[in-house]
């Protein structure tokens, strides 16, 4: 295990955090859309709140996928082929979502269809990413070649499903926090969003406790030493809890705290992803038979390749951050 391998393990965690913290809230808005968007004006505000930025947010996923391929190809190959149908559902979700966001206002007569596509296209990824992560944490049945040998239904086990719900509820809290920040002051939509922000953050904590109980009772004892509850994981777990408590502490009435709401929800993403990676380290995809586990040591690309990737990242990541600052500044403030 080289220094580059560890560096890229951390960088992939960072990319996933970037994806979760950013696309998480626009996926959350998409799932809340049919429930909060009761009239055309509220629907428009919800769409406009994510309109200019959702696509850029989604690119974090493509970057994380590409980086996983480049840095740990066996992990990319095993997870994407092993979770084949789930990944395809995520993919179809992302496709119909992108199309629905763009065509909603230019394809008159089918608004209802586009609204449904926006909702389903947001729900599928929001739910399934967590399910996939839950399966990775619990360990997969892999063979010596690194291929998943289980069935599709086996992926829908209780721990994976609770992880899916955890991810979804967190994104709902993020989505509500974003809407509270972007919806016009004094309108009912902002009030509803700020109430939901608090509600979902509270549910998020409850789901987290349930997931933790299942983890300690059923997952950790069967992990054959592939998982570790270390100091770093505990610190990240604490960060997650602080994030959710921070969201709850924003209350409902003070719009000045709306920025704090979305930032706290983002801190929760850092906590969840950080905790997962800290527990997995040095595994990337633990196997039920630990001899077949995909680890940093046996999956990392060559130092030559990782050096090239590091240089690419050193040039690219600052640029990406600058773009984000520019665009989020240009579109700051509430929707009119």
């Amino acid at each position, binding site marked *: 295990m080289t220094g580059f391998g560890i560096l890229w393990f951390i960088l992939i965690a960072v990319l996933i955090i970037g994806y979760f913290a950013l696309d998480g809230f626009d996926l959350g808005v998409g799932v809340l859309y049919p429930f909060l968007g009761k009239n055309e004006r509220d629907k428009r505000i919800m769409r406009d709140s994510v309109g200019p930025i959702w696509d850029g947010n989604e690119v974090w996923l493509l970057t994380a996928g590409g980086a996983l391929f480049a840095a740990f190809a066996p992990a990319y*190959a095993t997870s994407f082929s092993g979770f084949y149908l789930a990944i395809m559902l995520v993919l179809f979700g992302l496709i119909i979502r992108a199309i629905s966001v763009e065509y909603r206002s230019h394809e008159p007569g089918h608004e209802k269809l586009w609204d449904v596509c926006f909702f389903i296209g947001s729900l599928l990824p929001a739910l399934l990413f967590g399910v996939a992560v839950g399966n990775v944490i619990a360990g997969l049945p892999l063979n010596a070649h690194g291929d998943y040998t289980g069935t599709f239904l086996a992926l829908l086990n209780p721990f994976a499903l609770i992880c899916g719900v955890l991810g979804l509820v967190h994104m709902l809290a993020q989505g509500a926090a974003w809407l509270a920040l972007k919806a016009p002051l004094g309108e009912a939509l902002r009030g509803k969003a700020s109430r939901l922000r608090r509600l979902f953050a509270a549910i998020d904590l409850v789901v987290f406790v349930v997931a933790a109980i299942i983890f300690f009772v059923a997952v950790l004892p069967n992990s054959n030493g592939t998982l570790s509850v270390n100091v770093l994981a505990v610190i990240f777990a604490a960060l997650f809890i602080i994030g959710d408590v921070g969201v709850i502490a924003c209350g409902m009435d003070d719009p000045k705290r709306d920025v704090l709401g979305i930032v706290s929800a983002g801190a929760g993403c850092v906590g969840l992803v950080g905790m997962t990676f800290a527990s997995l380290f040095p595994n990337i995809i633990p196997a039920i038979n630990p001899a077949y586990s995909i680890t940093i040591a046996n999956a990392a690309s*060559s130092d030559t390749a990782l050096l090239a990737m590091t240089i690419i990242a050193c040039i690219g990541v600052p*640029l990406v951050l600058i773009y984000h600052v520019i665009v989020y500044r240009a579109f700051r403030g509430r929707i009119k």
Partner: protein
Amino acid sequence: MDVLLDATFLARLQFAGTAIYHYMFVPLSIGFGMILAILQTKAYKTKDAHDEALARFWLRLFAGTFVVGVATGITLEFSFGTNWADYSRFVGDIFGAPLAAEALFAFFLESVFLGVLLFGKGKVSPKFYLVSAWLVWLGSCLSALWIIIANSWMQTPAGYEVVGTGAAAKAVLTSFFEAAFNPSTLQRYAHVLLALFITGALTCLAVGAYYKLKGRDGKAADKLIKIGAIAGLITGILMLPAAHMQAVVVAEEQPAKLAAMEGQFETQAADLSLIGWVDEEGQELHAISIPGFTSFLASWDFDTQYPGLNDFPADEVPGGINAIFQVYHLMVALIGVLAIVVLLGLAVWRGMFAGKKWPLRIILIGPVAAIIAIQMGWLTAELGRQPWIVYGELKTADAISLSVDPWMLIITLILFLVIYTVIYVIWWKTFARAVKEGPEKYMVADVPASFEGEGVLE
């Protein structure tokens, strides 16, 4: 039925189908992006209400097309892991980096500044808005660069060594620059990029011709025809050396592909067929050919000998020679059509054929001919390198995901077919309606400071 249960065939079918579909929208997006940047620049300079309307109108066409390209592009990035796991394991050291770089350097640029184009009118300064249009186009061209780097490495791999044997064998990077700028990258990038620009130019020309044909003469139609014809001429002329250089690379690096393209079975000077038929069983080519002309094009010498298909081991030549021959020659034939369209466009722009409808009708087929030519070019490139997925190193049949069953591929194939068909119909309906309504719809006397978005995503 056996073929329907063959995982390799199904995986290839799925990749071919989703890639071809995606690649209908890529040329339009990158080609439209070029026209968009030109029109936005004109509007910025003249501050003329008609130019502004034309720029907005083109943004509408661009956005509706671009989003389909974005959405269907995700499929391909995922597919290396989902459908081609053993390929990913073999090439990860090399192939993943361009994909990550594409996202980092190109996708972010495109998507972030497209957000500015669609929602930023009145929120950002006019200059910043204009820069955003150029950045979106630059981003899309960079995206093409990284994908061509990745694909070219599969065609003419370089800067690597193979470590391990059997199922554990994998390519390991030895030089990033040799791998990225392998023997075919730059030639193929020029060839591909110019083809995309030609498509954009010819679509611009065709939209202008459509308005003239419908009797909606006016500034907008004239401007579109002028921009389309000039851009088509410039990119078309540049294409000649680019296509030539690509042919040279194929001749030098992928001799079996060259033999398949010209249906040549024995070592000889390579002819250039104009039209023909390959009898694969009888190992004969029935064609009208210019003897030695392909040798001349590839080496400036009519007598240069190139190997035929029989000079390679039977399991290292592509199947379906006649299909490769036909798609290649269809691409070549379509170049003639494109040239005629560009010349007619120039003539119409200069005021010839006034009142005549037939030149305008011929111009309308320009974009379709361009896209078919592009697809035929890619089919030549990808069928011609079979049975290799990484030329000379890894066979396609050894590259699939062993954990994915054929029934999963069939289910997703059906889903792709349904969803992609619906998207295509909607795209075309919306596109056609936007063209029918025309730039007139986008006339605004003056843009209020609080203008909220382009109304594109609302």
